[in-house]
């Protein structure tokens, strides 16, 4: 048997068999080496690019979502809050500089017609409702201001024999009347603003803040801090005008 096997490579058929075996072995080795050595870096590079792109896209999507949440408005509708826009100061300034200068106080020479008409009118002076229009509200407040300003005194002709102290007293009384008008009108504005704030914001249910995202709550907090600052500033203005008037009282 051994002798027969030894004879096989020597024959033509044996050479063919050996060639086929060697060919198949070489082919297997060549394919494996080709994939492992030549294509593996290209494959890894491609994988790296694809993974990087996928992760970058995901981070972008999450970031965009987060930015979108951060840009969501708060639950308090600022368009419905109008109390911050009411200011009576310019209206009061005109009353002092235009009306009172000529029509009220000891130094005024006006005819006092408006004062007389207001005093004689049969309608009772009222503290107007904050539910009314602001212009209407101002109009009603002005009627009282005219009464507070007083009648014209006729000017300095009637003060020829006044002493210095009397002059000072007359001047202080005029200033006191002006301060009364300013304090009354500013306090009226305070009532209007307070009532508007209550009306506009008491309809808002704070439970909405609980239902929204915390980013929205922070925005609402900032808005409310602004409104609170406006209210406090209004309070300070009303108080300071009132105290200025009080400082002039009894002089």
């Amino acid at each position, binding site marked *: 048997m051994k002798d027969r096997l030894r004879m096989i490579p020597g024959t033509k058929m044996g050479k063919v068999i050996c060639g086929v075996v060697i060919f198949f072995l070489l082919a297997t080795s060549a394919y494996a080496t080709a994939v492992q050595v030549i294509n593996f870096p290209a494959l890894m590079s491609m994988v790296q690019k694809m993974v990087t792109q996928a992760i970058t896209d995901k981070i972008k999507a999450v970031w965009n979502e987060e930015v979108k949440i951060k840009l969501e408005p708060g639950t308090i509708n600022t368009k419905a809050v109008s109390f911050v826009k009411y200011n009576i100061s310019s209206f009061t300034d005109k009353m002092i500089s235009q009306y009172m200068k000529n029509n009220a106080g000891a130094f005024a020479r006006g005819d006092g017609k408006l004062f007389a008409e207001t005093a004689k009118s049969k309608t009772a002076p009222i*503290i107007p409702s904050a539910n009314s229009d602001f212009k209407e509200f101002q109009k009603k407040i002005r009627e009282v201001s005219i009464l507070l300003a007083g009648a014209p005194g006729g000017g300095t002709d009637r003060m020829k024999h006044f002493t210095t102290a009397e002059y000072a007293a007359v001047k202080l009384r005029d200033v006191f009347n002006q301060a009364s008008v300013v304090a009354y009108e500013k306090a009226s504005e305070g009532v209007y603003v307070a009532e508007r704030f209550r009306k506009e914001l008491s309809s808002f249910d704070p439970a909405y803040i609980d239902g929204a995202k915390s980013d929205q709550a922070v925005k609402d907090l900032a808005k409310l801090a602004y409104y609170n600052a406006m209210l406090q500033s209004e309070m300070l203005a009303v108080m300071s005008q009132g105290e200025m008037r009080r400082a002039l009282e009894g002089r």
Partner: protein
Amino acid sequence: MKLNLPVVSRLIIVVIIASVLLTFGLARNSSAIVPPCPVATDATIAQMAQQWAASFKTPYCAYLDKRRNILLKQKLVAGVLQQTSAMSEIFRVTEESTSIVKRIEKVARRINLKNQGVADMAAAKLRALRSGAGLTTYSAGEKAFAKASRVEKALEKFSSTAFDFCSRHQAQKDAAKLAYLRGLVQAQELRLLSLLKMMEALEGER
């Protein structure tokens, strides 16, 4: 029919079968190429890259989604101060503006408008308004005190230490709610102060 091949022919068949098995079976598996890649074209590499990329990105994206959902959930948790809705209800009650007018008119009816000079009538009107403002201020003070007492009572039930044990998101929501309540209280304070100053402005000799 009996197949009687010579020994050499049998050997040839055995060698061919063994070679084929070795090439397509054992040899390929032992070369650690999974899956077998007989021809390494761009298409097969791209396919493999896609599979590998998917296996890398899926757990990472799942982690990001999980983290994002946790954060979103935290943002949506309600605050710990739950009484705010009940407290804001207290301020929803309106002041009776018509009653103010009626009060002043009632006082004004007592003024005798006959045979009076302009200055006297102006003084009488201001006196009537002062009385009305006094009544209004008293009423407003009474209501404001009642509201303040109710809010105080509602707030007493809450302990501010609760903020130490809640998340930042909850504290932010409660801060907003408290700012809202503070606004309502301040508006009440402003109204009362303004009425008081209006009444004061009507006082004094002119």
